[in-house]
């Protein structure tokens, strides 16, 4: 006969088992296969040949990898600064208005429901030289048309729709966090003579610091997976100057049929993602604040 404690443990285990099984089948198993694939020259379909560490040697010599890593971190910087930053400012502003909060919530959240592919296509049409919206404005203003996506500007032009799409997501998370702060904290602070700006600096921001860090972790994690929007918008060009790791992996796998090398790139993405998130978590140590 099992003790009550053992029965309870078994019940809990049975409840946890489906999710565990799911993770093993759809995450752990493909991950292991991916590691194995990285030692093969494979077209991903019907031909495969063991080549040892060749794919890893190639990874370190490949100039496009360097560009993709640089671009990925550059976009990460823009995302952390502007995506989370703008979302924070908007959340603080919206929290301070009495009417129209629902309106702003809906409007700012709206881009999230549009697929990255559609946003990529939309911005492609904004930037297009001949028929683009931006150049239509330039012509209306009597100015000369511009080539908006150049080798120098490509990564910034790609970062704009990425930031625009997800501002609303972090806005909602941060606004919800701000709403959790007890109002009486603000009321007593007002009695002490605090104003709107100092209220934000000394009360709001410290109390939602944990949520801001969570947003940053999500944002960093998201950047590592970006590929669809860049694929539609620039295909990583011109001259690979807007190439990001996720897209490069996709192109190596599905355009070049170099699945072994693509598997190696995906391992690099995982390693860089884990390293970055670990560093971020260490830099912004979470403090448990209770109120």
């Amino acid at each position, binding site marked *: 006969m099992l003790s009550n404690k053992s029965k309870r443990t078994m*019940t809990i285990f*049975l409840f946890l088992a489906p999710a565990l099984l799911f993770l093993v*089948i759809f995450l752990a198993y493909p991950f292991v296969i991916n590691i194995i694939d990285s030692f093969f020259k494979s077209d991903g*379909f*019907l031909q495969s040949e063991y080549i040892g560490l060749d794919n890893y040697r190639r990874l370190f010599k490949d100039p496009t990898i360097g560009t993709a890593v640089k671009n990925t971190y550059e976009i990460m910087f823009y995302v952390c600064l502007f995506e989370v930053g703008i979302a924070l400012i908007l959340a603080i502003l919206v929290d301070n208005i009495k009417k129209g909060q629902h309106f702003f919530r809906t409007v700012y959240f709206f881009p999230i429901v549009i697929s990255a592919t559609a946003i990529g296509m939309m911005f492609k049409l904004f930037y297009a030289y*001949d028929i683009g919206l931006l150049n239509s404005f330039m012509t209306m203003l009597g100015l000369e048309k511009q080539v908006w996506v150049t*080798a120098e500007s490509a990564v910034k032009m790609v970062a704009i729709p990425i930031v625009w799409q997800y501002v609303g997501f972090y806005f909602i998370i941060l606004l919800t966090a701000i709403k959790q702060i007890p109002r009486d904290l603000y009321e007593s602070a007002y009695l002490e003579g605090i104003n709107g700006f100092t209220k934000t600096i000394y009360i709001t921001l410290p109390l939602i610091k944990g949520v801001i860090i969570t947003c940053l972790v999500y944002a960093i994690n998201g950047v590592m997976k970006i590929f669809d929007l860049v694929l539609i918008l620039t295909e990583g*060009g011109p*001259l690979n100057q807007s190439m990001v790791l996720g897209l490069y992996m996709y192109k190596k796998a599905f355009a070049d*049929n170099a699945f072994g090398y693509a598997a190696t790139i995906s391992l690099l993405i995982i390693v860089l993602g884990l390293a970055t998130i670990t560093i971020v978590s260490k830099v912004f140590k979470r403090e448990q604040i209770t109120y």
Partner: protein
Amino acid sequence: MNKISKVMALLVVLTFVTGVFAGCAGEKEDVETPAATEKQIDDNTTKEAEPVTLRISTMFGGTDPSTQVFEEQLVAFEELHPHVTIKNESMTSVGDEYRTKVKTDFATGNEADITFFYNGADVQGIINSDKVISYDEINEKYPEVGKDITDGVKDSVREEDGKLYMMPLTGFYEGLFVNEAIFEQYGLELPTTWENLITAIDVLKENDIVPFAGPIAQSHYMIEHFVLSQAGAEGHKDVLAGDEPSADWVAAFNNIKDLYEKEAFAKDALTMDIEMAQNLFIQEKAAMILEGSWFIGRCEDELKDKMTVIPMATASDKMDPTSIIGGFSSGYYVSKSSYEDPAKQQAVIDLVSFLTSAEAIKDHAAVNGGSPAAKVVVEGLHPLFVEGHAMVANANTLNMPIDSRLTPEAFNILVKDGIPFIVEGRKNPEEVLKATKEKNER
């Protein structure tokens, strides 16, 4: 309470496990219908009456000019064979997605019963894996399959092992499409020679017309035409044959660079894709475009009236001025597993026979402008189609595109990591060709 929890947990686990295995097995069950299979083996007479579902995958989807014709053909076939239901998995061939879909399907055993796909390097892995059946074998039992397609065409698409795996519908050609009206407006001669081409570029540029709608980042057609015009038919075939990069290929890439520096392309040519380049020509903002015969289907009649198609201007005396890129590069493949499935065999044969009949080929040729693989007279064609067919008939050599002789990765080095960098002066043709050769050999 404890018992209820345990029962619930067990139910959750069972549901999940059943769900996973049912999910994995679901599609197979739908396709094989084992009961029906056994019955059909035993009773041949009821074969046609048994319902059967066939999957077909083609490039006749999206904006392809043949999409409507193909869909109508499927409807007509289903009306003639009410027991056959067809799942049309067609999609556009623009980009690499279609290639990937077909190769993934074959690699995972999820291939369609009939697949319209490329020949040459693209299909080699599929043939080597014994996933498609040759028409030589099919014809032993069903000699009527593909009977309308001419022997010459069939022989031209036989693979290295001498077998015929693909039944083509229409051959393609590529050429320089020119807006003759614009050329006439500025008193320009057609760009049949390099000198005429350069003169035209200078004049058109001065008049704010984009001379060449050329997408540098997707320069597939430009690469093969510039190489052909410089290296001629033999040099074009010699994909990186020698130890050192071919001087003709280097010169051909430098020709693209020269035109880029002369601003022969649109200002955003470096980021432009093929569709944007086509639109530039269709909107008559550009005067020339290197395209395939299928491009005619995208143009309105009003524009077709102003257009002509000619071989690429000769850049050296190695190029025969009539030579063009063209041939038969795609056709219907029959999956071996479907052919060997007694429940499907007859339906597959009926469908592929229907789709490769002279009538079906004629319908495709009427809309995509390609040369029909069967001896048919395509009536009512716009004169531009006729001009294209005449160009093919007059060509001393028909040359298959370069990508049919290179691995996808090697060819993409030319397209993605080659031409854009060469025109911007960041790489020279020699290093691009060396990298391409190295990747093609690995």
